């Protein structure tokens, strides 16, 4: 592998593995702090427009002990981790935490923050199809904007917001391009690396992330793609972590040729539309345009067809369902798209994702069996 690619991938891994350093660097450079972005969807552009660094809070991989006081064992793994980190004061340097509440767990989590940062909550409308939903969410964003201005002391102008929207749309486009490119170069970009590029996105100012991703894509394209002798899969779920889990994919020759993970491609699926409407309204429209996600109501149940389409387009051999432990919305979607897979003869395997896990042998055996039967 070309040295340049290695260096770039190392950079992504380092950033993905050390959000605290990203915050410190941003503060040193701009004099501005960071704002936590809770899963799953928030108008990050608003935070970006203040010059503060939006930092994704998608859990960690610690032993869960303190969180047990506040959450029963049947709360999802990622929120157990977030609660543990809250209790340890890890998030206390954040100027604020932005909370969307599209599931029951998040509704509760937003009201039981154990850290010291102020919590800024907003609500997505459940019925997304109506024009009234756009107007409602626009109003929610207007309230959030005001709260953010209060916390940061920065007035968010329309010009600044338009600039941020442009930066984010460019970043999303670059990431979609990267995802497609990674599918062609699994020898060069491992499952762990692919994830690192996505995860670094959660801790970097987006124009910088875009620049780094473009540099990586240019370096990768300089090499000719090699035929892949392993198998190809599409992954779906909330997230696919920790790295120990991703290493299994690399070890078993399973290339991730596309993902439908909330932490990864769902974040870059829908751009903020262009148009003459006010920026807050266009930001709100993203929620209406969102598709294929367990927390965004879809009466047509198009997630299965979407995944099967991804399988067809990428030539994947199977779908690996990364089921977030104790995530109701994801569990409720599963039987529906599983049946659709069965009808169409699409192979799939469900594995359970627990960020606390340190031993992956059982999943290894199951993935190995999948590979052998493909």
């Amino acid at each position, binding site marked *: 592998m070309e040295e340049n690619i290695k260096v770039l991938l190392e950079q992504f891994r380092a950033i993905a593995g050390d959000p605290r350093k990203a915050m410190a660097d941003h503060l040193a450079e701009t004099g501005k702090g960071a704002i936590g972005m809770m899963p799953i969807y928030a108008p990050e552009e608003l935070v970006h427009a203040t010059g503060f660094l939006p930092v994704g809070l998608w859990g960690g991989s610690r032993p869960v002990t303190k969180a047990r*006081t*506040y*959450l*029963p064992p*049947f*709360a999802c793994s990622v929120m157990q981790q977030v609660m543990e980190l809250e209790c340890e004061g890890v998030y206390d340097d954040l100027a604020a935490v932005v909370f969307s509440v599209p599931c*029951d*767990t998040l*509704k*509760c*989590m937003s*009201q*039981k923050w154990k850290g010291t940062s102020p919590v800024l909550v907003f609500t997505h409308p459940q019925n997304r199809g109506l024009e009234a939903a756009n107007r409602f969410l626009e109003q929610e964003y207007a309230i959030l904007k005001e709260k953010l201005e209060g916390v940061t002391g920065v007035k968010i102008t329309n010009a600044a917001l338009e600039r941020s929207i442009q930066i984010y749309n460019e970043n999303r486009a670059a990431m979609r391009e990267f995802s497609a490119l990674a599918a062609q170069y699994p020898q060069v970009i491992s499952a762990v690396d692919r994830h690192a590029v996505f995860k670094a996105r959660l801790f970097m100012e987006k124009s910088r992330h875009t620049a780094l991703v473009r540099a990586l894509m240019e370096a990768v394209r300089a090499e000719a793609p090699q035929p892949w002798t392993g198998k190809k899969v599409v992954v779906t779920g909330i997230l696919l972590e920790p790295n120990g889990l991703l290493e299994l994919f690399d070890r078993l020759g399973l290339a991730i040729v596309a993902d439908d993970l909330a932490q990864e491609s769902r974040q870059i699926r829908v751009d903020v539309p262009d148009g003459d409407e006010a920026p807050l309204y266009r930001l709100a429209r993203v929620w209406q345009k969102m598709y294929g996600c367990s927390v965004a109501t879809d009466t047509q149940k198009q997630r299965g067809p979407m995944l099967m389409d991804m399988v067809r387009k990428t030539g994947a051999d199977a779908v690996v369902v990364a089921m977030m432990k104790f995530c*109701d919305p994801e569990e409720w979607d599963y039987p529906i798209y599983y049946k659709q897979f069965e009808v169409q003869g699409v192979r799939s395997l469900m594995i359970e994702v627990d960020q606390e896990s340190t031993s992956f042998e059982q999943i290894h055996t199951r993935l190995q069996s999948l590979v052998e039967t493909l």
Partner: protein
Amino acid sequence: MSRYKPSPLNGFDLFNYMALVVCARSRDYAEITFRKFADELEEKYKKGESAFKGAEKNRVTWEGIAVWPYLGHTFKTLKNQGTIMTGSAYPNMWDLTYDAEDESLHSMAEAYTRTYINTCLDNKVAVLRRIMEEGQCDGVLYHLNRSCKLMSFLNVETAERIQEQNGLPYVSFDGDQTDPRNFAPAQYDTRVQALGEMMEQAAGGGQA
């Protein structure tokens, strides 16, 4: 009726009659049954009769949905130690007032947004405190319901805030509104006994 001490109403009877409220709310026989039930309670009260016939030792608020597969067990454990349930926010969720003539359904929609569990922690605490006061309760029993995250994940915070305000003891137990596998009678019994002891101690002037 549960505001009277001793209480003519056994709170678990409301759980029993909930089937009617939930499934047959608009039927005349639901109304007839409830009126009869209310009249009987009124009669009992006038005669000075109480639900536990002199055996009422202390009173609790039940927070959460009933453990339907173990309705009998959850009731009898309390009854055996003389603890009567005189407060629960759950049956009240079906006690909504709105303008039935409003064809836009706006009034009905607005009424449902007031349902305590659809609101926020502050309101949940306020609603439960009021229920405890009205029912003259000595403690709270929190149902950590495996099948309802929304009604469970704020229990710790609710309990802490309420205890800070009124100093009354509480316990929590693991259960489920539907799946019998998630309820252990022995754990429930132990927790209820602990609550009983704390309430007795508090009544005796000791520290809760």
